[in-house]
């Protein structure tokens, strides 16, 4: 852009944007700061400099076993994502490369399943889980999260795969490649970036899913969403501990999220905004 930008303009824009950005980020920042305070310090009014104690962190682990929940979150989000990819990659693949007359209808229908409100099926799912012994089981919840995110995964993969030029396929075919040969040697290398970003976004979505993960678990399979919800009724002085637990629960996904901004836009708008 060849427009001349005055320094004054830039200074004002920078100042305004930083102030707004810091205000938006403030609740997160203040939580991180408070997590390094002691419980006494945490209720002594507004202060941005903590004493730097780690006692809340050790206490959160000692009292409620943070790592078990963390482990469940990792297992559920990564596991459900891998399950979803196993089912979705072939489907998105065939829709992108040998589309039929009904492909578009099928895609729209898949998306429509995402619109069903979870509460509408809460009790049936609860019953099915109870009667099959899947309540509070990791595998049950993993399948659940996979089903919830499957439409988004298929859509995202589809929009990525569609951008792979079809001529390459034809060339490979003329050279005598079979369909499986095409997939293994021609398309997979080109599709890996799309699959990776789909995976990233889906892990974030699964990590933060806070309806089924709370309702279908009690102790064994409970991930961080359920762990954090147990703080909803205050137990004495718990501000620093709540902060430490919150920081631990969001840190991994926050960092992953920072790296996935572009994919986020694309994935959540089903390719409509790039």
């Amino acid at each position, binding site marked *: 852009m060849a427009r001349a930008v005055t320094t004054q303009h830039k200074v004002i824009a920078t100042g305004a944007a930083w102030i707004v950005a810091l205000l938006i980020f403030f609740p997160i920042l203040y939580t991180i700061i408070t997590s390094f305070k002691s419980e006494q310090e945490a209720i002594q009014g507004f202060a941005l400099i903590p004493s730097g104690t780690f006692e809340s962190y050790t206490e959160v682990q000692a009292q409620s076993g943070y790592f078990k929940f963390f482990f469940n979150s990792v297992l559920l989000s990564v596991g459900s994502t891998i399950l979803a990819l196993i089912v979705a990659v072939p489907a998105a693949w065939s829709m992108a490369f040998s589309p039929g007359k009904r492909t578009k209808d099928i895609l729209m229908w898949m998306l429509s399943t995402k619109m069903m409100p979870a509460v509408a099926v809460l009790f049936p799912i609860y019953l099915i889980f109870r009667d099959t012994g899947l309540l509070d089981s990791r595998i049950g919840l993993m399948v659940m999260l996979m089903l919830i995110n499957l439409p988004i995964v298929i859509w995202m993969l589809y929009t990525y795969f569609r951008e792979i030029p079809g001529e390459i396929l034809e060339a490979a075919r003329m050279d005598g490649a079979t369909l499986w040969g095409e997939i293994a040697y021609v398309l997979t290398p080109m599709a890996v970036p799309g699959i990776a970003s789909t995976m990233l976004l889906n892990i974030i979505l699964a*990590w933060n899913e806070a309806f089924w993960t709370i309702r279908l678990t009690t102790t064994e399979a409970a991930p961080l969403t359920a762990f954090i919800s147990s703080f909803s009724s205050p137990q004495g002085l718990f501000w620093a501990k709540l902060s430490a637990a919150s920081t631990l629960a969001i840190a991994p996904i926050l960092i992953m999220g920072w790296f996935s901004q572009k994919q986020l836009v694309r994935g959540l708008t089903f390719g409509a905004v790039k």
Partner: protein
Amino acid sequence: MATQQTRSLARFMMAPSVVLLFVWMIVPLVITLWFSFQQYNPLNPIRDGFVGFSNYALFYSNPAFLQSILNTLVLVGSVLLITVIGGILLALLIDQPMWGQGIVRILVISPFFVMPPVAALVWKNMIMHPQYGVFADIARFLGAQPIDWFGQHPMMAIIIIVAWQWLPFATLILLTALQSLDGEQKEAAEMDGAGFVSRFIYLTLPHMSRAITVVILIQTIFLLSVYAEILVTTNGGPGYASTNLPFLVYQKALLEFKIGQASAGGVIAVILANIVAFFAMRAVGKNLDK
């Protein structure tokens, strides 16, 4: 160009997804529909069987029902208003030339990655707590009485929390759309003497219209089913002051075990979502043709 063989292989590759999603959608929905016409309480062995539309009548005559529908609409409407207008303004601001734009983007997008229960609890205890929250500190500093957010203004408190979660999403998507605007067009408009406001109305806004539609539609889907934020802050109260439809259905089903009524509520939620979905699908579908 596809041969018969690749066709059938394609179908074979698609089958697992289609079957899974079909079962996932149809089976629970049919069970819900069935229960919505039944008298059923798991704690009470007496089952009267088919009861016609009486569950719907009961659910409808419950004063909490109209309140919850109203709360649902207020929540969706307010959050949409705040995030779309705020998102446009923020996107315009961040799009300006500045130092540290990358970091500003990262700071602004961050709340979106915070899981709902954490977002709600942080706001409840760190920010809005009437004794130890930052808002209370500010109020005391100004010599005012701290506000008991969740007791006095429960809906407003929840709207603020949910808007904070979704503002980053709106901003990020609108910013992405804004940055795809052709710089030359902007320059041409500027040279023709168009001021900032007319440039915004005649050039920027039309360019962003599709992104705005997408933001509204996608947020509506998620906002219609806000749950965890209410669960960990007000638990629907005081009374039913902050109960939305999903929360009411949850209460009926898992706390009161009135399965018939809860199912009727669920069916109503499905109808509500379908009205929204109808418009959403059309907008997304149009884009697919492009």
